[in-house]
């Protein structure tokens, strides 16, 4: 219990400082008395005895001081005194304190913010038990494809390395919920295999999990629809009523039994917005013409404990390349290209990892620049404080004591900066989250939390030492002789060299950041110059979800949308309108195998795929997708008419090279044959950076597999598209009031939103770059103006000896610019290397893009020149008469 005694005694003596001090003082005095008395007994006079004791033991006060220094509370106390002294010092120099604190706050705030964003996504494990064993398995064809249900069944039965495998449907479950509590709401959900939650390692908080019996074939009679719901949905729409379990609720007018509620903390990383889950209910007989062979499942698996990733990959390879009779495969799911299996976390973060790492590096660069800047400020301040430190040393402070005190001051400075920085991070993190690409996994877990606080504290400690140690050692290097005059006229050359080196480093680092920002900016410029394949200006788009029993009749759905399009076309200001099942740049992905009746043998090997567009006549016109050949789909292409399709031009060129594509026949998945009647231009479907993807257009009426229940309405207007939103809403409501309208946005907004990740990276790089530029300018200015102040007499002598104003100006400018140039040269070399990390994020811009480098150099040089100009002009205006007489 010695620790407690130490602690309690320490605290007691801290609380009762004077009593503790008196105690020690009395004891020491008493000791001296007794010593003197004992000497007296050998025959010395009291006076002699006291002197002898003094000679032997030193001064009473010295001994008291030494005894008093014992105990942790005294070290804490000295530290407290140092901090208080430091605070007074900073208070006396508000400009220095303010600039240094704000600089550090910027650096620490930026780093903490970015850390908060990166931590849950890249550093923390997925929020499931033993999540390191979760893998995702793709069909290897076309790089990465979703698997079919047939493939899932085969792998699940044959694999031994996975303890369990689950499948998640790509086509979303989007039921419309109408309860008494609120209006119709379209929910996001997923179709999953019955063991999905068990594979993740999550159990419902209420009710039960799916069982195999819930996942029986859809056509089987008497199997009710069941669903699990999220905690959020349960609270929002069902008032957190535990009796919801087992109750039937109408979803899209279909009775569904809610069997359970998931835990509040459950995060569904495969689709963060999902709130309802139901079972896939495929036909285990795997009919070749059914949806069981569509590539639209994601397959995740949990490795058996002790099984390594490589073992699983090897086994999957073996399964892919050794078909067995028991599991026949469809020709488009032959697994010829094998499987691609990766840890789930890596897969989820694959797209966003380069951007996040780049931004993290940028924040680290900014922090480094901030630290260099503050080190320089403290060094500069050390010159002013030489007199003070010399005095302190003269009255007996040891060098260690001075270093300790200077470090305490830095710690105070950095801590205040850190505190402001964390406060800034707290506010800014929401802004950054808003900038993040929407598809980011685990965005909900981003917060300035305990991890971020720990990170910030670590930063503060590290920076205090890094920033403090050099100036402290340098500052305490005062000798009584040099400081005796209490006013220095010759600059310490060591310190000067150090400050110049730091400034060069700062300029170089700023250049690296600016080059990064420049390259990203140029990439975005190039991207937005890319033709989208349609004309985005003055187009409003929104999704209408049909909900209700009557829409089970496909004709009712078609009629509803036809009437909506007609109603919208009547509106003043509308020049064209149409519908499609999937819209470019929205993230929609409805891809089907497209089989050409007479494909040349060269092209026949791969499995061609295309976006299936089920459109209304007028859609292509409203989007202004150009017609290249043949004719557009029109109102005559109805159910009983000959089946016709349009394809995009690069699809035609690749699949049917050298022949007239018009008149050729194709089928989409298991559909009947369509005749190609028209060729339209390529459209950027997924993003501006991704090459035009192949597409097939048919009319809704001729797509007889099913009727798309959710369709995009595209409206071209003569004026501002967004302004027409209320009128269009009213037009839709006039046809049917109960259908949810979703995702309203102009096409121009969609184009820029499609590059959210690049915007995000660019915005942060630009912000950091601008700050770095300002810090470099401030640093240059500070160094040079300090140098001018120190060399006032030298400059005055030069002027007195006949140097012209211009030559003095040039002299100072040269001094400053030579440092800038050195920084630029080093920075260029560093940028050439560092830009390699940005390469994956660039778009048709070389990482050595000359325009960027030249632009950045000019920007940095101009800013620097401006920062040098102010002190240079001050030097040139010095009056030698005044300066020299002042001494």
């Amino acid at each position: 219990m010695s620790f407690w005694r130490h602690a309690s005694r320490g605290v007691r003596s801290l609380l009762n400082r004077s009593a503790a001090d008196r105690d020690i003082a009395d004891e020491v005095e008493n000791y001296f008395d007794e010593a003197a008395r004992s000497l007296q007994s050998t025959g010395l006079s009291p006076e002699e005895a006291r002197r002898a004791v003094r000679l032997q033991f030193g001064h009473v006060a010295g001994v008291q001081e030494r005894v008093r220094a014992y105990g942790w509370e005294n070290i804490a106390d000295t530290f407290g005194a140092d901090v208080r002294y430091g605070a007074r010092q900073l208070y006396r120099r508000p400009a220095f304190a303010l600039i240094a604190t704000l600089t550090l706050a910027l650096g620490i705030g930026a780093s903490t913010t970015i850390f908060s964003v990166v931590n849950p996504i890249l550093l923390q494990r997925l929020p499931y038990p033993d999540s390191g064993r979760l893998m995702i398995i793709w069909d290897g064809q076309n790089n990465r494809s979703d698997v079919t249900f047939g493939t899932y069944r085969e792998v699940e039965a044959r694999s031994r390395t996975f303890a369990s495998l689950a499948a998640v449907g790509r086509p979303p479950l989007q039921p419309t919920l109408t309860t008494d509590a609120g209006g119709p709401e379209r929910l996001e959900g997923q179709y999953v295999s019955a063991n999905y939650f068990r594979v993740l390692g999550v159990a419902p908080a209420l009710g039960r999990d799916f069982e195999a019996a819930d996942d029986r074939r859809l056509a089987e009679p008497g199997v009710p629809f069941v669903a699990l719901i999220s905690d959020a949905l349960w609270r929002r729409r069902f008032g957190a009523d535990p009796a919801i379990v087992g109750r039937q609720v109408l979803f899209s007018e279909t009775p569904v039994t809610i069997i359970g509620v998931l835990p509040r903390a459950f995060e569904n990383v495969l689709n963060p917005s999902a709130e309802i889950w139901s079972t896939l209910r495929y036909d285990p007989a795997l009919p070749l013409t059914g949806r069981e062979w569509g590539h639209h499942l994601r397959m995740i698996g949990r490795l058996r404990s002790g099984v390594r990733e490589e073992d699983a990959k090897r086994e999957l390879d073996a399964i892919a390349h050794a078909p067995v009779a028991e599991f026949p495969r469809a020709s488009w799911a032959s697994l010829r290209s094998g499987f691609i299996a990766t840890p789930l976390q890596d897969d989820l973060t694959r797209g966003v990892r380069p951007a996040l790492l780049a931004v993290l590096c940028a924040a680290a660069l900014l922090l480094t620049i901030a630290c260099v800047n503050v080190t320089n400020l403290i060094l500069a301040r050390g010159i002013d404080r030489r007199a003070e430190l010399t005095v302190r040393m003269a009255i007996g402070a040891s060098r260690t004591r001075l270093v300790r005190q200077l470090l305490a001051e830095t710690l105070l400075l950095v801590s205040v900066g850190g505190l402001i920085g964390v406060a800034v991070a707290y506010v800014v993190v929401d802004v950054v989250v808003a900038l993040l690409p929407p598809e980011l996994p685990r965005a909900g877990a981003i917060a300035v939390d305990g991890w971020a606080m720990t990170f910030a504290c670590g930063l503060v400690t590290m920076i205090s030492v890094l920033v403090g140690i050099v100036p402290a050692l340098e500052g305490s290097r005062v000798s009584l002789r040099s400081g005796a005059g209490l006013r220095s006229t010759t600059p310490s050359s060591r310190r000067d060299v150090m400050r110049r080196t730091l400034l060069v480093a700062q300029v170089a680092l700023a250049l690296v950041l600016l080059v990064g920002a420049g390259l990203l900016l140029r990439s975005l410029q190039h991207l937005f110059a890319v033709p989208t394949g349609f004309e985005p200006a003055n187009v409003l788009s929104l999704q209408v979800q049909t909900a209700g029993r009557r829409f089970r009749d496909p004709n009712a759905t078609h009629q509803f949308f036809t009437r909506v399009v007609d109603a919208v076309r009547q509106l003043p200001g509308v020049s064209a309108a149409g519908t499609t099942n999937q819209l470019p740049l929205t993230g929609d992905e409805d891809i089907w195998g497209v089989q050409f009746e007479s494909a040349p043998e060269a092209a026949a090997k791969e499995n061609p795929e295309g976006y299936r567009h089920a459109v209304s006549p007028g859609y292509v016109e409203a989007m202004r997708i150009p017609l290249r050949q043949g004719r557009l789909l029109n109102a005559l292409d109805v159910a009983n008419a000959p089946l016709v399709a349009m394809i995009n031009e690069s699809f035609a060129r690749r699949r049917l090279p050298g022949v007239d594509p018009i008149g050729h026949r194709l089928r989409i998945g298991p559909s009947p044959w369509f005749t190609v009647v028209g060729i339209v231009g390529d459209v950027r479907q997924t993003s501006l950076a991704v090459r035009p993807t192949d597409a097939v257009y048919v009319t809704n009426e001729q797509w007889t597999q099913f009727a798309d229940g959710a369709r995009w309405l595209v409206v071209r207007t003569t004026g501002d598209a967004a302004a027409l939103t209320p009128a269009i809403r009213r037009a839709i409501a006039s046809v049917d009031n109960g259908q949810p309208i979703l995702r309203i946005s102009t096409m121009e907004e969609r184009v820029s939103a499609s590059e959210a990740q690049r915007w995000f990276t660019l915005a942060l790089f630009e912000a950091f770059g601008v700050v770095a530029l300002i810090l470099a300018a401030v640093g240059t200015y500070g160094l040079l103006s300090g140098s001018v102040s120190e060399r006032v007499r030298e400059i005055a002598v030069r002027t007195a000896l006949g140097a012209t104003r211009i030559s003095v100006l040039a002299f100072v400018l040269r001094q400053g610019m030579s440092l800038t140039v050195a920084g630029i040269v080093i920075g260029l070399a560093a940028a050439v290397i560092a830009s390699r990390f940005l390469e994956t994020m660039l778009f048709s811009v070389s990482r050595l893009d000359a325009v960027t480098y030249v632009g950045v150099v000019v920007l940095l040089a101009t800013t620097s020149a401006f920062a040098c100009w102010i002190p240079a002009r001050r030097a040139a205006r010095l009056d030698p008469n005044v300066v020299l007489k002042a001494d």
Partner: protein
Amino acid sequence: MDATNTDVIQGTLDMLILKTLSLEPMHGFGIARRVEQISRGVFKVNPGSLLTALARLERAGWLDSEWRDTANSRRAKYYSLTRSGRRQLEAETDDWTRRAAAVARILKTEG
């Protein structure tokens, strides 16, 4: 945190204090005088080290202290050994005896 001592072998001051106090409670100067007397002047104790050591031993729970009148009716801080102080003394004595014997053996064989 430990005070260094130039006159007493490093690390033995604690043991000497404990040993001295095992006889009777004493004040600081009394301890110093006793150590010097018994060691016949081999060990000189300096007050800074001694009083710091006393504070440390008290914190460690091996000593108790109280202010009392001295023989010549002055007030002084008297230290006495606690039960765990006594145990510590035994442990340190054993340890010291073992080391001293070992050093003595080495010196003998060297000679």
